[in-house]
């Protein structure tokens, strides 16, 4: 199967299921088998999902909790593999998923920046070049050389965020990250996301906040119980998930208060 040269992400008939295991130990398993109870059950997180994204598009991925958004994002990110179907991506991926994952609490902020950048695929030169920008964005001040275990949760998140947004990527994934951080930082983040979008990168934004999706995205995909329920224009998509009705009651939503 061939795809146009500007294709950024292809998701083809992707299914991913997880097993819910009720019993784990030998004893529990034996007892359950003897009583004829179920010991294993499959749960389809994604069910035959297909779509493709061109380079530079920004997609808002919406849906209720448990509809498979995070699983889909993990498949695109490459952390998980689909059970069937395929996920293809072009270029380097970075994103605000699990920012700060893999930060080692005993290492200093400085060491963690280098390590995290390397995990995200940056080389030594590239990290060195961007180091000052990252530090400035993270705004951790004199804590840079103390172990991140001592950081406040806001500082921790800022540091992770700072590294992620400085990766020179082609696809940018963002998963309800703006819940942490204070208002000024949220503003800074939204501005940075806007910049990323304008630079022609593919943006994949998971959010419940209709306001920020409307601002950031030019296409919405809605997942419903692991299937694509809607794929199309932003306003129609937001209407589809019925998030537009409570827009007025949520003063925070312009900044993407993802809860």
């Amino acid at each position, binding site marked *: 199967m061939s*795809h146009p040269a*500007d*294709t*950024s992400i*292809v998701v083809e008939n992707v299914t991913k299921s*997880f*097993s819910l295991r009720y019993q784990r130990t030998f004893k529990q398993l034996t007892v359950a088998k003897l009583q004829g109870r179920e010991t294993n059950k499959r749960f389809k997180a994604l069910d035959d999902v297909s779509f493709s994204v061109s*380079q*530079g598009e920004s997609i808002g991925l919406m849906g209720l909790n448990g509809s498979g958004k995070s699983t889909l994002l*993990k*498949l*695109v*990110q*490459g*952390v*998980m*593999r689909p059970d069937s179907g*395929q*996920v*293809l*991506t*072009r*270029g*380097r*991926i970075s994103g605000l*998923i*699990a920012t700060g*994952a*893999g*930060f*080692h609490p*005993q*290492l200093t902020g400085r*060491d963690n920046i*280098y*390590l995290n950048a*390397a*995990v*995200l695929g940056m*080389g*030594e030169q590239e990290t060195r070049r961007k180091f000052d920008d990252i530090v400035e964005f993270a705004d951790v001040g004199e804590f840079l050389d103390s172990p991140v275990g001592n950081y406040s949760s806001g500082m921790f998140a800022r540091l992770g965020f700072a590294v992620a947004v400085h990766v020179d990527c*082609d696809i940018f994934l963002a998963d309800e990250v703006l819940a942490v951080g204070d208002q000024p930082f949220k503003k800074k983040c939204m501005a940075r996301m806007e910049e990323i979008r*304008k*630079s*022609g*990168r593919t943006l994949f934004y998971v959010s419940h906040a209709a306001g920020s999706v409307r601002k950031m995205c*030019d296409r919405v995909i809605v997942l419903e119980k692991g299937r694509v329920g809607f794929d199309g224009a*932003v306003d129609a998509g937001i209407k589809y998930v019925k998030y537009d009705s409570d827009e007025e009651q949520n003063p925070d939503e312009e900044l993407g208060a993802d809860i």
Partner: protein
Amino acid sequence: MTEAQPVRVVDAPLLPASHDQGLVEVFRRRYLLKLLVRREITARYSGSFLGMLWSYINPLSQFAVYYFVMGVLFNLHEDIPNFPLHMFSAIIVVHFFTETFAAGTRSIMRNKALVRKMAMPREMFPVASMLVSLFHVLPQVVILVIAAVVSGWTPDAVGMMYALLAIAVIMLLGTALALMFSVANVFFRDFGSFVGILTMYVRFGVPMIYPFTMVEERFGRFADYYLLNPIADAVLLFQRAFWVGTSRDVSREEMIVDHMPDGLLMHGMVALGVSAALLVVAQLVFTRLENKIPERLT
């Protein structure tokens, strides 16, 4: 959203999001590997007063126990020329192996946060564990060499080649087992406990606290089966390198004839081959099971 956007042309092929090339990918991303190894070394002993010294206290205390029990109590001193060095050279090899095996087995569980959320070759963690253990071998070898030189030992080319062969065998074998057990440990924590038992067998299954001559005496031609154990071969190779030649009474040649098996090099090469083959198998097992890692790591 109709404003003109710059077109970003991505000069890269469309690839599966989770492309796996296993160990090959690990060595392609050497920079990340280097940082992981460095992190492991600094983090392992952070918060401890003695720090890195612990990696010497452990083998040295083992040395002390075996020396008194085996050497002094059981009188093995007299049968083996320079018994302490016989034992210490073996301890280095065994300790390298058991550290790689044990730390490697825990490596994926320990790095849960990274494994569950970041896209990177997961073979990285067992390999990093092996390299951290290798890093600790170096100073131990320095101590060994000093002790050997004091006893009148001089290096010989063949011996040095044997030492490198021994290290290579343990590197491959340790990585292979660490790969298999690290992923198995995600599914059932039982494998972690199993490692402890295996480690004990390894300590007694190599000519460390007893000489190889004793094996030959008791088992006769069955001693060949004993030599099928790659770790035993590695220990003998290492002893050939650093222990042979440390006696003032017995010449190097005599020690080789008396205490080393015939065709040691051949056994070493076979051990290397077996370890390499096992590494290939381990990679296949790892690739098969790796899929399920993120959901099983809870």
